[in-house]
């Protein structure tokens, strides 16, 4: 039971508050159970004997107790809310800091969207469950036990009614649930299905109209709609039976209590006021049965969420700073790969195998190859997002695994394939790479990245607000800002992962010229799809299925490397490769 395990560790810091909640709930329930007693007394000693003074006196006591009960309940809710919301906060913190420590390997294993859901929806589910548990469910067993005890102490024989009513209720509820829950799940699937069809209609509107398939789409939708409606109808028709059935059982139980109670009173075995008290207990017991059922409904959902949360929190990050770090003497940016191989855990084939490469300061190395040839993985190894399965990655003569992580990353300027920007100003985004950068530094980087003009034209310039992900600037602008960000860092090693794809040819050319000047002293590694981007590289490395199949300049490779020729032909046509 992950839910139990998770709750045990998450609730540990709140042990005292939880104890207080349980205690107060017990007190609140005890008062609640005592109140019908007073009602009985009012009837037996006040009304039946005509003693008005007694009625007022006991009434005052009742009011006082109710006030106590209310106050206790409010305090209990106070602590319950503190605990449940606090646990939610702690879980979010725990997940977030764990994910921050993850390497690319764990990120890939979980997937970004899944991690986001776990830290948002799943935590929320657990939070809601805990709030319900602490406010409603803690009381249910206490109420049930106390209610049964009180009912028994009023009259054992009359309590036998419960032997019929409670199982009857349980049967009705479980019958209903066993039929409704599968249907309900099926309905969720159908809702997803219908929303998916609609989503496709909105995103694919051009294709649908181009192929004149509106009718087809409408039929598809209509089928999904009819299907959903009929399931919805079945589920709801079961659900609408629940309330009348349960209310009916409760009402009939009180009728039975009156009948049998009447007999007992008639034979003088029970005072008449106790009948009223007894009815109140019966109602409380049945209500707590209902609560217990609610708990049963809520548990599976919270359980699923707890599983997903625990999975993250119990995953150890595969990357960590070494215990006895070793820093290279001088950071120059010399990268050397020695017999490097890499495979994903469980993956059949190696992504990279037996790589021996060097990237040197002042040199630009381009890496080209088809999808799945391992280009991005290679960059990931240099940036230490992954560690090689075998072989070594040396930077400035020291194995990267021995270097202190943060210090090592200081020397890396990465421009990822997905040019991602954070919400905040243009300036914030650029300073993301180096907080101490001056405004002049920023403009300089923008200039090199061919981003100066459009940033200057933005309202507010460096203060222009970028939306999350950078969705309010064009793809080309996003790439250029992302390049400028890496430039602001002034690292020894630049890693460009296919980040020129959205630029038009002219901008691409200007940017590369400016970059060459700016990065003259640095080690530059460029992964590219477009041949035109890398024509002027000092060295081109051609990767195919994880192996180096060619190294050299454009001209040389055209003559010696068939894989390279194939790429050039496909992009530039026969005559370029001739």
């Amino acid at each position, binding site marked *: 039971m992950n839910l139990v395990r998770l709750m045990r560790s998450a609730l540990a810091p709140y042990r005292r508050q939880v104890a207080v909640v349980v205690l107060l709930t017990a007190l609140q329930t005890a008062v609640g159970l005592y109140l019908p007693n007073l009602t009985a007394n009012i009837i037996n000693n006040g009304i039946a004997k005509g003693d008005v003074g007694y009625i007022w006196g006991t009434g005052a006591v009742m009011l006082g107790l*109710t006030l106590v009960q209310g106050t206790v309940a409010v305090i209990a809710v106070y602590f*319950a809310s503190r605990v449940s919301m606090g646990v939610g906060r702690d879980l979010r913190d725990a997940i977030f800091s764990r994910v921050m420590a993850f390497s690319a390997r764990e990120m890939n294993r979980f997937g970004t969207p899944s991690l*986001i859901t776990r830290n948002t929806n799943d935590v929320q589910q657990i939070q809601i469950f805990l709030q319900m548990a602490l406010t409603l469910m803690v009381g249910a067993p206490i109420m049930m036990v106390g209610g049964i005890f009180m009912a028994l102490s009023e009259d054992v024989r009359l309590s036998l009614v419960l032997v019929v009513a409670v199982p009857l209720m349980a049967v009705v509820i479980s019958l209903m649930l066993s039929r409704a829950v599968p249907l309900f799940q099926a309905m969720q699937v159908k809702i997803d299905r219908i929303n998916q069809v609609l989503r496709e209609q*909105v995103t694919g509107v051009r294709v649908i109209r181009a*192929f004149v398939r509106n009718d087809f789409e409408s039929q598809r939708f209509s089928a999904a709609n009819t299907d959903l409606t009929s399931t919805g109808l079945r589920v709801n028709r079961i659900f609408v039976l629940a309330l009348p059935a349960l*209310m009916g059982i409760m009402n009939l139980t009180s009728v039975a209590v009156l009948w049998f109670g009447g007999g007992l009173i008639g034979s003088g075995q029970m005072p008449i006021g106790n009948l009223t008290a007894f009815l109140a207990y019966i109602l409380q017991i049945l209500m707590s049965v209902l609560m217990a059922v609610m708990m049963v409904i809520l548990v599976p959902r919270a359980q699923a969420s707890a599983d997903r949360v625990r999975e993250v929190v119990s995953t150890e990050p595969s990357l960590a700073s070494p215990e006895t770090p070793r820093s290279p003497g001088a950071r120059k940016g010399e990268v050397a790969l020695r017999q490097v191989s890499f495979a994903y855990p469980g993956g059949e084939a190696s992504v990279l195998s037996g790589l021996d490469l060097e990237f040197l300061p002042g040199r630009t190395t381009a890496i080209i190859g*088809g999808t799945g040839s391992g280009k991005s993985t290679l960059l990931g190894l240099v940036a230490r997002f992954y560690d090689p399965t075998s072989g070594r990655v040396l930077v400035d003569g020291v194995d990267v695994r021995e270097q202190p992580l943060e210090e090592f990353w200081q020397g890396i300027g990465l421009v990822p394939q997905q040019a991602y920007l954070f919400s905040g100003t243009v300036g914030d985004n650029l300073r993301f790479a180096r907080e101490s950068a001056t405004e002049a530094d920023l403009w300089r980087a923008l200039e090199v990245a061919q981003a100066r003009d459009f940033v200057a034209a933005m309202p507010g310039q460096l203060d222009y607000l970028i939306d999350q992900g950078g969705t309010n600037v064009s793809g080309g602008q996003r790439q250029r800002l992302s390049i400028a960000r890496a430039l602001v860092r002034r690292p020894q090693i630049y890693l460009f992962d296919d980040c020129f794809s959205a630029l038009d040819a*002219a901008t691409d050319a200007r940017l590369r010229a400016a970059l060459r000047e700016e990065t003259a002293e640095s080690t530059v590694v460029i992964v590219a799809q477009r041949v035109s981007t890398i024509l002027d590289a000092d060295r081109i490395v051609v990767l195919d299925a994880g192996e180096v199949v060619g190294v050299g300049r454009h001209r040389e490779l055209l003559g010696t490397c068939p894989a390279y020729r194939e*790429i050039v032909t496909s992009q530039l046509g026969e005559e370029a490769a001739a």
Partner: protein
Amino acid sequence: MMRGPGGGPRGAGPRGMMMPGPPQSARDLRATLRQLMARLRPEALAILLATVLTSAGVALVVIAPRIIGSATNVIFDGVLGKELPKGMTLHQAEAYLKTHGHSQIAQLLQGTSAVPGRGIDLNELGMLLGLTALLYLAGAAFSWGQGYIMAGVAQRTIFGMRRDVEAKLTRLPLRYFDSHPHGDVLSRVTNDIDNLTTTIQQGLGQLLTSILTILGVLAMMLLLSPLLAAVSLITVPLSLGATLLIARRSQVHFGRQWERTGTVNALVEQTHTGHALVQVFGRSRSTLEEFSRQNQALYEPSFRAQFLSGIIQPTMFFLANLNYVAIAAVGGYRVVTGSMSLGDIQAFIQYSRQFTNPISQIASQMNMLQSGLASAERVFEFLAAEEEAPATDTVAVPEALGHVLLDRVGFRYQPDRPLIEDFTLEVQPGETVAIVGPTGAGKTTVVNLLMRFYEIDSGHIYLDGVDSARLARDSVRRRFGMVLQDTWLFAGTILENIAYGCEGASREEVIAAARAAFVDHFVRTLPGGYDTLLDADATNISAGQRQLLTIARAFLADPPILILDEATSSVDTRTEVLIQEAMARLRHGRTSFVIAHRLSTIRNADTIVVMAEGRIVEQGSHRELMARPGVYRDLYESQFGGALELAG
């Protein structure tokens, strides 16, 4: 969802894909209610029947405590009667009690029909309780019947709304989709409809029951004892006021909680998405600190909101008990003075409990109702959006040869921003037109106009000699085949996705098309072959294979005119070669408009249309355009010059 830099106004972007906002209320409540009523009108008969059943059910359940009260009286009478010497009349008993110093009990006798010396009349008690049981059973049956009918009403109403929303989607002009964020449209047609379903399903029947119960119970209470009814009514405004007061305060915190949840979620989303950047740029620590701060900021209002909404129940409970004590005290006094029977008090106590329940239920449902109405408003707004003017063929549809003539075409997305003015272009059947220009130059505009996704403002487009404006849009589109970079596939089998190009295509025809598009081999390597299910975003096959499938789709459609978008996105070299060959084959013998990136395509095109900043800036053959300085020559030289030089 990251879309490449789209041309034209499609850059609306995925910003609207966030979660729906917190429950707000409808802006124009009356209009929304009126429209909702209109939607429910076809169900009037069912609703009427449900109302009758509810009334009957409520009446029975309301009468039952009264009868239980009588049963209690029978028991009480029996208890009293037994105490008295047999054979006395009630008056004698009274006098007897008074002389023995029990004057208060004597008074009590006045309100009863006890027979001295006789115990509980079990016959009568049995009859009364049997009747009560019957009433409860019948009441439950009625209320079930009502629920059954209303479930139908709700489901049918929502079915109709879903149907209309979908039909609306097919009638909206492309302009609507381009100018509204997809997220917003989707949220209206999915989330809002779902929210409304919940409201109608849970709200309608309950509201009806609650209101009728309040009325019935109030009537019974007044009937039993106007004095006690008045006592109970005093607590009603108290509980309503307390609920509203607390709810309004907690609402503020709930709003803040919602807002900060958004902030925290956004932070989670962007930190996880930009994970590598955060690490490599050494921002882990500061991001963690920022998160902790935001997380704590979320905790405060969450706690307050939960706490405040949590105290509503104890408060209501206290007020209910207050009411109870007041009734017991006042009622007890009335029984003692003989002006009311014990059974009536019991009945009254039951009523007063039944009375507060539906009131707090309505109060707790107000939020749901409000947010349901807000959703309804958004759906109605969507349904009221301006539709595309219907168009039908007003001339005979000409034979499809592939001749296209754009005659002095003018078009602008916004009236004050001229885009295409006086554009004339003639394309003979089988010719190729290459559309070139930097990203964001508006190359899709030409596609929009040819396909009649947008209507031109001036001029004419002739297809095989007939003005396309005189044809139905569908007739125009049937002449075109389209392969875009945005490879839209739907969740279904590969077979269904290819067959999308042509209604009623046989399996053989689909396979032939796949073969022509070089994707047959790939499909056969899949475990399910042509029946392999593509998942929602078709992420289980590569971008290149997706492209090939869309080419196969176009093959199957076999149109005389093609619109092609050459891929620049990440496709591996071998697939890239296949795509090129497939496209070349597809183009063979057809008129093609190609959004071109490849040198060979551009150079071999019969006409090149050069676009920049949304406008057409140059037009001509490669030779003509290279002969004079201009955008095309610059573009060509910067992009391919180096390659040719080095290669040459």
